[in-house]
């Protein structure tokens, strides 16, 4: 199994347009999605990112820190998953309810490099 990162991109107020019923269904679908991945052993971790923070740039000589939400689209969270290959990772991403319930969701699917083969270096992972 290989590791992939799903970066969920969307508008900051991505759930604002949902009605009470839609929100309930969305929550249920999210739970089902997460539970299915966990049961299949494909979910390493998944967390939303709190809607606060900064983007820093510059250098020690002069720092620039701007708001995390300067652009219309922000990263609202991530899923760290296991899949056999990119195609499977993409299939998992397509099942994410965010796509069905909101208009502007975009999911970035990226393989994670765990070993730098040429020098046989294991990238560190937290416990």
């Amino acid at each position: 199994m290989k590791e992939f990162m799903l970066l969920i991109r969307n508008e900051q107020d991505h759930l604002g347009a949902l009605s009470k019923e839609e929100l309930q269904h969305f929550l249920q679908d999210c739970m089902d999605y997460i539970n299915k991945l966990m049961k299949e052993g494909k979910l390493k971790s998944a967390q939303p990112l709190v809607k606060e923070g900064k983007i820093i740039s510059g250098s020690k000589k002069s720092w620039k820190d701007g708001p995390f939400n300067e652009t219309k689209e922000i990263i609202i969270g991530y899923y760290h998953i296991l899949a056999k290959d990119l195609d499977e990772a993409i299939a998992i991403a397509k099942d994410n309810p965010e796509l069905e319930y909101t208009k502007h969701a975009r999911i970035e699917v990226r393989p994670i490099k765990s070993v730098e083969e040429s020098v046989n270096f294991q990238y560190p992972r937290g416990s």
Partner: protein
Amino acid sequence: MSNHTEINQLIDHLFRHESGKMVAVLTRIFGPENIDLAEDVVQDALVEAISQWTYNIPQNPTAWLYKVAKNKALNVINRDKYKRKYQSDVIHFLKSEWTIEPAMDYFFSDQEIADDQLRMMFTCCYPAISSDSQVALILKTLCGFSIPEIARAFLTTEDTINKRLVRARQNIRDANIPFEVPAGEELDKRLDTVLETIYLLFNEGYSASSGDKLIRYELCEEAIRLAEMIVSHHAISDNSNTAALLALMLLNASRFASRLDRDGNILQMQDQDRTLWDLSLMERGFYYLRNSASANGISSYHILAAISSYHCSAPDFNSTDWNSILSLYDKLLLIDDSPIVILNRTVALSKVEGPLQAIAELEKIKDHPAFKQYHLFYSTQAEFYIQADQYPDAMNCLEKAIRLASIKAEQGLLQKRLNSCKEKIT
């Protein structure tokens, strides 16, 4: 420190209004078997408010309070060592970080809060719980009353109230009921219990005060607020009994201000200053009375509300339409022939047919066990004797009444009547 009092007042006010809502929502989240947990979390949030606000009152105290309660609720759920079982069907939304935030927003939305308060009312009025315990539980969870306050309201000890609450919560746990508004036939039955409980609550506040006037009036306000929540809720389609109860409570409440004199003694109706009546409450009462008509027949609330409306619409005591009131009591007797109704009817009877008829009526029921310790029986009897100029008999009754009356405000009135009888004899 005036800042300190200001904060305490703010917190008291908030507590009254918001704690009921928060307990209802948290009970939805934790499940009804964990009502005590919901109460604890809200209590913790309040304590935190008191300690933090001494330095800095937040811009939006209500939002602050809700945020703290939400966070504490999440901490409770996430605690591994917490071995509680949650039957609630919504708890799993709070176990995944992806669904927590939108779920919490959803649970704490205005609509859900309103629905949960209704669900709470039905849960507290679960049939297995005794009616004393039902009222105590509603006051504690929905109305934000403390145990000492409830004890004072019921003229009993904190220990008694505590026992009732513990029993009630255990009954709910044992019953394993879902947190919901019942449907169909079950709804009609349970709604009757809810209305009874609300009426009980109202009467606790309405009967003569023991000096804690402020708290007693608050009970009436709470009862009215709870009934209004029901009458305006979409889940309940047949509102006629609730509207009738609301009419009754509002019409009675509109006349509160005139009931006591400046020394806190009760005034008889003929001595009350009708300019003190609250016309806006009265108008709301009449509104609900008009809208309480139903194809399914009338309840005793309908009749009592109609009787109250006759008192409200009389410009003075002597213009009261006693004939209509008497015939309403006759109708009431058909549904409810309890001794209290019979007693109250005799007052109307005395106005229509004279005191001697009323005295004769009372003779028929005087041996009823309910009246043995009931001071109002003897004071009513005394009034009829006074109207019939039979002063020695009146004094006899008044002395019995004074011995049985437990509340200062009533004793004051009775003593006055006794004194005026003595004057008539000498």
